[in-house]
């Protein structure tokens, strides 16, 4: 199939899909007219039931925690699969590394980047930690905070400290932490069965006041472990890609 023909087939197909889409839109409630009762019900009873003032976190880690468990294992499987693909490559690479040698000088990291990266590493960790631990109170939670924590590791690399990065986050350790984070989520769910509640039911004490950090029971706990899992997953992902780019650079 030539590119021209393919483009023609695509445009015809896309036109049909868009026609169906627009046809469907006509029957939908317009933008701003949210129809369903589900969200309204959760907004009304969520705080009373879970003591979390962030209803999105309550949905993520309590009402629909089962879905989130699935999402988290997608993340886990993707990070692991990527490691498998690239690790196989690295072996191949090292066997043929000899003829890769070239005398090319690396420009190195500029001082401006280095200073900015070092300056922001600490605050990034603090912000990430705050967002992980306050997910039940304010916008945030394990997913967002975990990504922010992972960027702190990227900043250490930007500061030109690849060796320091390898020392504080060796890939096997990050792998293990990732597994612990993912497993803890499932274990919290299973331990609810142990006390006679449903899988992933919120069985911990909810704290005395909604809006306090120690409230919301398992929501805070699951958010914490998701944060660990997401951080480790992205540290693994970034480290694997860094390894790939640095293999040639090493000699």
């Amino acid at each position, binding site marked *: 199939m030539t590119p021209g023909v393919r483009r023609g087939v695509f445009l015809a197909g896309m036109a049909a899909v868009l026609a169906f889409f627009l046809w469907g839109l006509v029957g939908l409630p317009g933008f701003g*007219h949210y129809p369903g009762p589900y*969200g309204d019900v959760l907004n009304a009873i969520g705080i009373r039931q879970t003591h979390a003032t962030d209803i*999105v976190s309550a949905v993520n880690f309590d009402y629909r925690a089962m879905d989130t468990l699935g999402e988290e294992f997608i993340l886990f499987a993707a990070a692991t*699969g*990527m490691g498998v693909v690239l690790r196989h490559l690295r072996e191949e690479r090292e066997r043929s590394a000899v003829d890769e040698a070239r005398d090319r000088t690396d420009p190195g990291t500029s001082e401006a980047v280095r200073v900015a990266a070092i300056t922001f590493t600490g605050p990034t960790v603090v912000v990430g930690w705050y967002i992980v631990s306050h997910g039940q109170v*304010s916008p945030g939670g394990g997913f967002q905070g975990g990504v922010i924590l992972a960027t702190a590791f990227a900043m250490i690399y930007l500061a030109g400290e690849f060796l320091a990065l390898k020392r504080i986050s060796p890939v096997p350790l990050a792998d293990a932490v990732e597994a612990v984070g993912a497993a803890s989520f499932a274990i919290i769910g299973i331990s609810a069965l142990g006390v006679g509640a449903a899988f992933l039911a919120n069985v911990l004490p909810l704290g005395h006041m909604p809006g306090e950090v120690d409230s919301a029971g398992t929501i805070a706990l699951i958010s914490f472990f998701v944060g660990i899992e997401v951080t480790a997953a992205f540290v693994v992902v970034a480290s694997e890609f860094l390894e790939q780019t640095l293999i040639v650079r090493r000699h």
Partner: protein
Amino acid sequence: MQIFPFIVVAWILAVGLYGIVTSRHLVHLIICLAVVQSSTYVLLLGVGYKAGAAAPFFSDIPRSTPAVDPVVQALALTDVVVEAAVSALLLALAVQAHKRFGTLDPEDLRQLQG
């Protein structure tokens, strides 16, 4: 203007798919896939939006304030993070393809296969 956000969704989806179909570079293709995925976030949040309502966070507003749907937001926010991991997996496959065939052009890869 009530369906304008959904028309934007359709546009993002269409333009992203067009990029995938006509792509001549695997990295370009994966970026286009990320664009396609982003259309679903706009769709989800657009469906759950309620005119004049607040965000579903009640730490500093009265609990009876009308708020937008939290369920679609929970769906979208996990999906954003998963999207990054899926892109990483696809990029790893692209790196491997380049390693074995020396090209990132899907057309050339297809010819090599034959």
